[in-house]
């Protein structure tokens, strides 16, 4: 018995090494599974506030650019508003309640982000106190950015669109063909559109938007434009590259959106035993 203990004592460094590696790998696996929660991430109080200080300093230099984008967006919204008012006087048909999907939108600022890995994440300075919940969509006026994964009191961490694990339900605007946007981990400007059948003939330059089939994003949020269409190795689908419209290296202010009917939809899916893609 004593010999066994002596033997184990001699091996203690190796055993500790194995133990620590197992802990680390287990944390990686948990972090990458859709239901898993990371133990240490940038939404924690210390790391969150440190990252916020950094972004406060660096954000200062891109203020004029942000202002330009905001005023452009204001102009566009104003135009839409005027259009709505004039529509009122001509004809007005109340929408059926089945078309109604109400969305809550919260503004936020990106305080931390990774770009160079295969599984990229973003940290936002809004948390549970501001009404952020898991599963909210993240977008900017330029396009979809990701989905909230975890929420702490004052910060939240989202899975970036530049994450090989995230699928976003999308469609080609001109032909209404559905597919899934997934990043292949290579170029931070280009993603793949999966599951578009071969009989469709999309052409480069076509706009790709969110489909609204998933309950994360409302319909019609820009994702990008088709860059190239090739026949893929898979006999059934096309290999489509999409040029992303959001510039991930320059993200600063974002919007978080929640579909308030998501619970109803989720429970319906659960009853029907359908697993939803995001």
């Amino acid at each position, binding site marked *: 018995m004593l010999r066994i203990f002596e033997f184990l004592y001699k091996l*203690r*460094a*190796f055993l*500790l*090494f194995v133990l*620590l*590696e197992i*802990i*680390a*790998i*287990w*944390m*990686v*696996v*948990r*972090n*990458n599974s859709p239901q898993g929660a*990371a133990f*240490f*991430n*940038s939404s*924690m109080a210390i*790391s969150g506030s*440190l*990252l916020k200080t*950094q972004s406060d300093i660096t954000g200062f230099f891109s203020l004029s650019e942000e202002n330009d984008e905001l005023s452009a967006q204001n102009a566009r919204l104003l135009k839409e508003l005027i259009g709505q008012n004039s529509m009122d006087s001509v004809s007005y048909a109340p929408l059926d309640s089945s078309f109604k999907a109400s969305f809550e939108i919260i503004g936020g600022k990106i305080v*931390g*982000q*990774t*770009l*160079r*890995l*295969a*599984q990229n*994440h973003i*940290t936002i300075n809004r948390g549970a106190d501001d009404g952020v919940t898991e599963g909210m969509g993240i977008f900017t006026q330029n396009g979809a950015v990701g989905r909230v994964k975890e929420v702490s009191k004052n910060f939240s*961490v989202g899975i970036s669109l530049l994450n*090989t694990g995230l699928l976003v339900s999308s469609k080609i605007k001109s032909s209404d063909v559905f597919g899934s946007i997934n990043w*292949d*981990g*290579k*170029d*931070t400007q280009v993603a793949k559109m999966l599951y578009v059948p071969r009989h469709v003939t999309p052409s480069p330059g076509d706009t790709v938007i969110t489909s609204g089939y998933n309950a994360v994003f409302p319909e019609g949020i820009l994702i990008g434009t088709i860059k190239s269409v090739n026949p893929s190795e898979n006999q059934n689908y096309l290999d489509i590259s999409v040029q992303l419209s959001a510039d991930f*290296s320059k993200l600063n202010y974002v919007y978080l959106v929640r579909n308030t009917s998501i619970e109803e939809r989720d429970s319906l899916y659960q009853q029907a035993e359908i697993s939803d893609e995001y």
Partner: protein
Amino acid sequence: MNIRNLFSTIIWGMLLLVIQIFFLKNLALFGVALCFIYLLLILHLPVNISTISLLVISFLVGLTVDMFYDTGGIHAVGTTFIGFFRPIWLRIISPTGGYDEGTSPTLQEMGTGWYLTYIVPMTFLFSLLFFTVDQWGTMGVFNILNKSFFSSILTVLLAILVQALFYKRRRSIL
């Protein structure tokens, strides 16, 4: 290690972590070469440190970086391996006559040739492990090797640059 050395090691380590987290996080030369300068914190600990404390320090350093990178534990997997492999590799490449008590394996103390044989395999192994875990199943072997190769080169270059600029020459006192 006396108390003064301990303090300077801690401050140096904090500085490396700050640089890594705030400046090098999204830096990638030509889209393939990442820089892991914080590995110097582990690689430059004194030669005679016990394996147990080396492993614990490596694991904690990896976790700290993971927290800011949102990578779960990918850095920790790599740093723990480095912590385990370091004493073995040091024994293999030990110079004739062994190491002096309390030496750190740095460029100034050990000379360029020895230092390169020490740091190049270590950073390459770390990068290899890091990218393998990061891109698990999503990309080919060539991509992983490519990224590891250029990342370790960039890390070694920066490590040499940092030491040439900021490390005091202890040998010159003699």
